[in-house]
């Protein structure tokens, strides 16, 4: 019971501590305008090329992809901002279980990711004059929550590398681009070569995008339970991998002395 209280308190306090530096202007640019401009660009592109066909699905899929900002970069900052404030080693040397620590920090970013995606969807609906029913939006919410959870799991894996390997910016940017590519948010999956589609099967958001397109473009709900289950399972596997990686990374950072290096 006490542990739960600490878990929740830490989630809230760490977000305040590490993200409290964002002044409203920067927050507006980073969390709102930048993802929205990504959405507008890709939505306009697909609108032009496909001549308006299946637009709802593509716009919504792009909205979902916006969560990458939080699930990759936000999660990574869970470790790197602590390094920036000079408190990483203080936190790492406390008795608390590191996995539950980073897990509690991830919650804020899952929620933030969902917020970003919803914002993108609302904006897309307004800008492109789309119509989405309440039933569709509620189901999408559930699907997106699972997808974003899964994406955060992968983000945490990348983030754990930050503990002992400097210059992770390159890898996180690559992951963000990879997710945009293999999720199929902007084209039918069949256009990708087989091996790339296979990669997409092992990355988060692919199934979320697929379901989004199925529901909004075709009204097809037949795959929801199955793909949702798979996405959730994938997310759990990612978090489990990140658990072992975090242990290994912590050991590496103590061996190499790289905890404070950027």
């Amino acid at each position: 019971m006490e542990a739960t209280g600490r878990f929740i308190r830490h989630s809230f306090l760490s977000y305040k501590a590490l993200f409290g530096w964002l002044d409203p202007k920067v927050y507006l640019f980073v969390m709102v305008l930048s993802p929205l401009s990504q959405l507008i660009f890709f939505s306009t592109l697909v609108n032009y090329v496909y001549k308006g066909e299946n637009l709802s699905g593509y716009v919504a899929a792009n909205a979902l992809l916006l969560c990458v900002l939080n699930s990759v970069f936000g999660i990574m900052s869970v470790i790197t901002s602590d390094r920036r404030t000079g408190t990483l080693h203080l936190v790492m040397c406390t008795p608390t279980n590191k996995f539950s620590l980073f897990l509690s920090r991830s919650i804020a970013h899952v929620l933030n990711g969902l917020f970003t995606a919803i914002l993108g969807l609302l904006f897309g609906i307004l800008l492109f004059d789309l119509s989405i029913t309440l039933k569709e939006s509620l189901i999408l919410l559930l699907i997106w929550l699972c997808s974003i959870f899964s994406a955060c799991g992968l983000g945490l894996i990348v983030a754990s590398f930050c503990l002992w390997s400097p210059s992770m910016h390159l890898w996180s940017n690559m992951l963000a681009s990879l997710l945009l590519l293999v999720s199929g948010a902007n084209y039918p999956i069949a256009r990708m070569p087989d091996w790339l589609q296979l990669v997409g099967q092992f990355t988060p958001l692919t199934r979320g995008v697929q379901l989004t397109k199925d529901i909004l473009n075709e009204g097809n709900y037949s795959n929801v339970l199955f793909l949702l289950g798979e996405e959730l399972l994938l997310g759990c596997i990612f978090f489990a991998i990140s658990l072992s990686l975090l242990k290994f990374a912590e050991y590496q950072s103590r061996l190499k002395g790289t905890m404070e290096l950027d």
Partner: protein
Amino acid sequence: MNHTVIKVSNVSRSYITELGLFKKEKKRVDALNDVSFSVKKGEIFGLLGPNGAGKTTMIKILSTMLIPHSGSVSILGLDPAKEFNLLRPKINFILGGERNLYWRLTAYDNLSYFADLYKIPSTCKKKRIKDLLTLVGLEEVAQQKVETFSKGMKQRLQIARGLLNNPEILFLDEPSIGLDPVSARQLRNLLRKLNNQGTTILLTTHYMYEADELCDRIAFINKGNLIEIDTPSNLKKKIDDLSIIQCSVIGASEPQIETIKKLQSIQHIQVNQQDFTYSLRIQTNEPQLVVPFIYDSMKNSIITDLTISNPTLEDVYVKTVGVNVS
């Protein structure tokens, strides 16, 4: 008879940096070289040395942040490299500088945050935070954000953080760096109070007078090597036959200073120059010869502030290690 709580045996640790465009060249820096010492329960133990001597590396190893490459460490009977989960609740560490706090949180929130990380039960958490804030004199500003604090206040909050889990051993790395004299003195008083209550303290510093005032025993460390360990008074006794002559000379020339440097009676001389003034600090067994010599060889200069005094710990360091600590 106080038992040993920290035992460091033959610890070595180096850093390898990669150089060059393709990271082919590797440069190795030996931060610690075969260092051994032990600390008894209830002691205040000091590690003294210049920047880069290896003090911070040692503290990092002791506080479970770093794993030594060779040798062994035992703290309260536990190995910090492997049994850190059992050790971490019993120790804490305070690093100098301003960065080790969350500036956007209030003082209270900072302590609450770390109290959770140290799994302090909620039954005593509130009271302990309140008591600690009172102990370090920050109870009035508990709800203010740390970014508004002065350096001294931040350091005091750090101390409070370091005491959240009532540690048996407290490690401090250069705790008074950047502090004004008043804050530094407050810090020393606090440490003495803690020690009286039974906390073992290990601190690193390059301020000699601080080590002299606080520590029960001191170890000199330089370039990763432990040079000497003893109590401050024993260390000073080793050179109590030495006198220290200090003076300022205005208008002297380089050759004149060189002449003084070559004087046989002088064991060690430290020369600082600022504009036209040279400050000299001389260690010698024969002050009765050195003083007249200074006056004779500096006929056209003005000599001021001449003092003859007993050696301080800094002089011991300079004599033993052979370099200036600052």
